[in-house]
């Protein structure tokens, strides 16, 4: 199936269109809110919450007996929120650290959820089939109403984000200052955490409990590499998230036996790796290039300074010296010498070198200039 054919299919085929739209919107919401999670150093909160949502789904089913999506989501939301606030309780009131609290809630809630799920499965006449789709997610079960739900949640998130942008931003970077300014930090904090929980719960059906945390983190971590501005980061993360959704759906649809969730996560992972390597300011590639360039410059400077030291002892600064003299010095190679010639700092005659006037002046100013730069 070629790309054009696929794009046509996205617009004509109901299922494919719904799934593509759904995963795109989900990716965008997760990217947006994930930026806050990453910057607040709550990256693993997503993992914990998504696991903690499981008993809520099971209990909602036990109480109502319905498999209707929204009921189960409300159950998931409630139990996710309970999990989140218990984590906060453990961190603030005891000496257990955040990683322990996260791991505890994650595994304990999930285990309890599993107990309930297996208990439900043993019940007679229960139409429980399909509850386990929340474990690993099944994008294929998305219907139009799900997409509408996601879109409405996304727009509410967006409106609240825009409305409280200033508060969120200041809380993110300087919580103490926010408090002294008289903002109610607790409320802002609860608001943003609740939104993160909401986004996670929405994604459970599509990518499942286990992979939800990556949906939240990966776009944000990738976006972080490209910018230092919060607004740009949130925007970029939303775009990365949406594209992960679209590409992931496309790849999984083009092959058999490929579930959507893991593919979306891997696509998001590719975004992250790409950003880690190729981001201009923080990326590993450019960092390495800058490092090598700096080292070369330093070597040139060292050679030049060494020459300057020798030239200083003579009245005529352009007095020729043997290249052999430089052999004692580590930084000297044929190419560095050639570079100095290219810059018109040094003249080569046979196997003798001499500093030019510009070369001498540059060398003399080399360290004084650097010193003034340091100051």
């Amino acid at each position, binding site marked *: 199936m070629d790309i054009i054919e696929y794009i046509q299919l996205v617009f004509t085929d109901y299922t494919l269109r719904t799934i593509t739209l759904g995963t795109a919107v989900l990716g965008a919401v997760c990217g947006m809110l994930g930026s806050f999670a*990453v910057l607040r*150093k*709550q*990256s*693993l909160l*997503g*993992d914990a919450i998504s*696991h903690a949502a499981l008993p809520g789904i099971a209990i909602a089913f036990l109480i109502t007996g319905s498999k209707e999506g929204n009921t189960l989501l409300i159950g998931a939301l409630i139990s996710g929120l309970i999990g989140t606030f218990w984590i906060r*309780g453990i961190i603030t*009131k*005891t*000496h*257990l*650290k955040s*990683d*322990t609290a*996260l*791991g*505890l809630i*994650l*595994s*304990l*809630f*999930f*285990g*309890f*959820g*599993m*107990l*309930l*799920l*297996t*208990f439900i499965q*043993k019940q007679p006449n229960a139409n429980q089939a399909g509850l*386990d789709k929340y*474990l*690993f997610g099944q994008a294929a079960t998305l219907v139009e109403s799900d997409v509408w739900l996601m879109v409405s949640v996304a727009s509410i998130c967006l409106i609240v984000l825009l409305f409280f942008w200033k508060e969120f931003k200041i809380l993110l970077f300087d919580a103490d200052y926010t408090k002294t300014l008289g903002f109610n930090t607790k409320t802002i904090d609860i608001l943003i955490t609740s939104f993160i929980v909401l986004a996670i719960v929405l994604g459970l059906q599509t990518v499942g409990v*286990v*992979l939800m*945390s*990556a949906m*939240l*983190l*990966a776009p944000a*971590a990738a976006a*972080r*590499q490209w910018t230092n501005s919060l607004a740009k980061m949130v925007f970029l993360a939303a775009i990365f998230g949406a594209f992960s959704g679209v590409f992931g759906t496309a790849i999984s649809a083009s092959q058999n*036996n*490929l*579930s959507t*969730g*893991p*593919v979306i*996560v*891997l696509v998001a*992972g590719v975004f*992250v790796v790409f950003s*880690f390597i190729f981001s201009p300011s*923080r990326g*590993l590639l450019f960092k390495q290039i800058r490092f090598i360039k700096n080292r070369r410059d330093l070597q040139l400077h060292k050679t030049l300074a060494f020459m300057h030291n020798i030239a200083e002892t003579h009245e005529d600064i352009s007095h020729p010296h043997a290249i052999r003299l430089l052999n004692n010095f580590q930084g000297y190679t044929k190419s560095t010498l050639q570079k100095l010639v290219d810059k018109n700092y040094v003249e080569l005659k046979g196997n003798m070198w001499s500093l030019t006037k510009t070369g001498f002046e540059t060398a003399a100013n080399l360290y004084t200039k650097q010193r003034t730069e340091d100051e």
Partner: protein
Amino acid sequence: MSSAQFEIQLIASLVAVACAIPGTFLVLRKMAMISDAISHSILPGIVVGFLITHDLNSPLLILLAALTGIITVVLVEYIQKTGLVKEDTAIGLVFPALFSIGVIMIAKNANDVHLDVDAVLLGELAFAPFDRLIIGGIDVGPKSLWIVGVILLITITLLFTFFKELKISTFDKGLAASLGFSPAIMHYGLMSVSSVTTVGAFDAVGAILVVALMIAPAAAAYLLTKDLKKMLGIAICFGIFSAIFGYWVAHWLDASIAGSITTVLGIVFLIVYLFAPTKGIIAVLYREKQQRTEVSLLTFLLHLKNHDEESERHVKHLNEHINWQKVRSKTVLDLAKKNNMILIENNIVSLTQKGDEFTSKAIDYIITNEDTQIEDMKDDFFLFRG
């Protein structure tokens, strides 16, 4: 109790002990989430091993999975070292990616892999006794019992051999390094043990229960003691108790054994979290309330000492001028009276000699910036605490 039931409980208890030991150190080293990451990311290792050997209990499988676990740790550390993201983000990025690869590998080879993701994550302890290890025609017991037993034995041997080193490197990395124990070796040793334990236990109890068994008993024990040896002991006891009790709950509910062991662990942790003598939530809240009242009392006494005029020392004044609620002022007044710090005559409050002495000392400490001394002083002066 049939022999199968006994064997299940034995396996569960052994797993609990094998998990509690590395778990204690993980919790103390603030690396609890690493166990969660490992438990997920061993999936591709297991799948590759299974594709090669077609045997879920083959040693190669355990080896490969443990290797994936260590790769996870190395990857997380590499990403963290680049400084591009924080450690927790690095963990959160690595394990879902590896897990996804595992899931896709299973899906792609669905026809010849009798392995589903549920089984890896959740395990099925109930089937463990049916997979017997037969040596020379003699049935020597369930395979998973042997696997877990060997892992436990190795863990315990390592624990006893390197207890001192582990202890020092956990609490003071700098000291450990200066004494010549490489913290890196300790770190990777612990990570390897955690990986192997996770892998060895996963097909009996599932990845999630492994995480729960590692973290929950250790966390509960940490709320009860500050002594490493006691913490290990308590964690092991909690683990075994939850394993056995959880089995019977599962038996009674006819539900997943792993799920019910985790639930029991959760209840154990909840009880400890609420009722632990000094670090439990109730004790903490009570202490906070006590301290609030005592600080109020001190403020009140200082106020009395500073003011001689009767209008400032009227009982009603508390509500009006110091801006306290009625209940609060009553508590503070009662406490002060019970401790013989104040006298109330015609609704006018005045300091007793003891109260005066207490307040003067407190002022001295506050002026010299030794506020902590006030806590000790309270023990000398107070008959009743807030």
